[in-house]
């Protein structure tokens, strides 16, 4: 520090390190986003519920890592004093309980309604037939026909096992 040219050199080196870090985090965030989008596109054509759930899990992990890079490097939290990091992170850890408790409660409410409220369950199995034509307009005629056909087919398939139950 006593030599001014030495301090300058330090400053230069520090500058380069900061720029390298910004570059690294930018690339990381872009790559993570692109992977997320690829998974999103891939998921459009997948109907297996288990595989969809697995992809969603991966997307959530990628989302959390993006959040980490933004907070740690862009918001500089990683380079702050430990006390500050703790005053931010410890209260936010309440979210672990929030998310777990509320999602659990939501799915429990759904199960209770499906079990004890036959009307609710029935309503959520009735396919809407012609409603699409009201807002879909003439933009996707062919697709609409297919959708209707598909719905009709699915409806029949749904109907049969239900009928059999009554006999």
């Amino acid at each position: 520090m006593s030599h001014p040219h030495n301090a300058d050199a330090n400053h230069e080196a520090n500058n380069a390190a900061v720029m390298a870090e910004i570059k690294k985090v930018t690339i990381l965030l872009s790559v993570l986003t692109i992977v997320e989008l690829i998974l999103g596109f891939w998921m459009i054509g997948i109907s297996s519920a288990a595989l969809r759930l697995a992809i969603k899990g991966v997307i959530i992990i990628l989302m959390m890592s993006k959040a980490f890079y933004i907070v740690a490097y862009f918001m500089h939290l990683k380079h702050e004093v430990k006390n500050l990091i703790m005053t931010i992170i410890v209260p936010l850890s309440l979210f672990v309980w929030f998310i777990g408790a509320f999602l659990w409660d939501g799915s429990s409410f759904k199960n209770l309604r499906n079990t004890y409220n036959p009307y609710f369950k029935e309503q959520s199995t009735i396919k809407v037939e012609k409603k699409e034509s009201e807002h879909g307009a003439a933009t996707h005629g062919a697709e609409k026909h297919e959708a209707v056909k598909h719905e009709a087919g699915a409806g029949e398939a749904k109907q049969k096992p239900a009928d059999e139950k009554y006999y």
Partner: protein
Amino acid sequence: MSTSTTASPNEAKLWGGGKSPFNLEYGKVMMWYFLMSDAFTFGAFLISYGTVRFSTNGWPDSNQVFRSFPFAPEGVHAPLVFVSIMTFILIVSSVTMVLAVHAGHNMDKKGVVRNMILTIIGGIAFLSCQAWEWNHLFHEGAWWGANPFLNADGTASSTNFTNFFFTITGFHGFHVFSGVLINIIMLIMTLLDKFEQRGHYLMIEKAGLYWHFVDLVWVFVFTIFYLL
């Protein structure tokens, strides 16, 4: 850390008085606490969305809802494309904000001005994209209390989907709007040499924290609404 013997001389100095034990300026500490409270607000919104979605049998498929693109011919469906552009706009504007803060560290007024202008342009571009998307959805019949989209399995949907979508993206868009205003004020203050007179660009750092938080929230909103 539990006993005094493990406390390093560094730490003793930190809590010895005379300076911030967080080694951070007061305004920045307060900005962190504000952002933490804001995180709880957004968290409450997103968790209530998740709770309602988990308590319902059917839910609209986001790839069916968000599949439009400006200037695309009728009938062309491009799910995820438009929102991925919005996401990249926000990431890039976050990077230019980091560069502005870094320029401020070096007392480089020119760098601050250039990067603040780029950040403001990014913010305005994001808001324009969102305005287009809202307008488009509105003309498809979606609004608070109106949901033209069926559930993914073809059953009738409730208005929960659109209510949450417009409330949460609206609240986030309002944050982006405030961020753009704050950044414009910071740009004007830089141009008026306010920070040169003060000898530091700490205000740019505080505005930067807020702007990164807006980007952070979008990471969650984007993933939860458009991908999951």
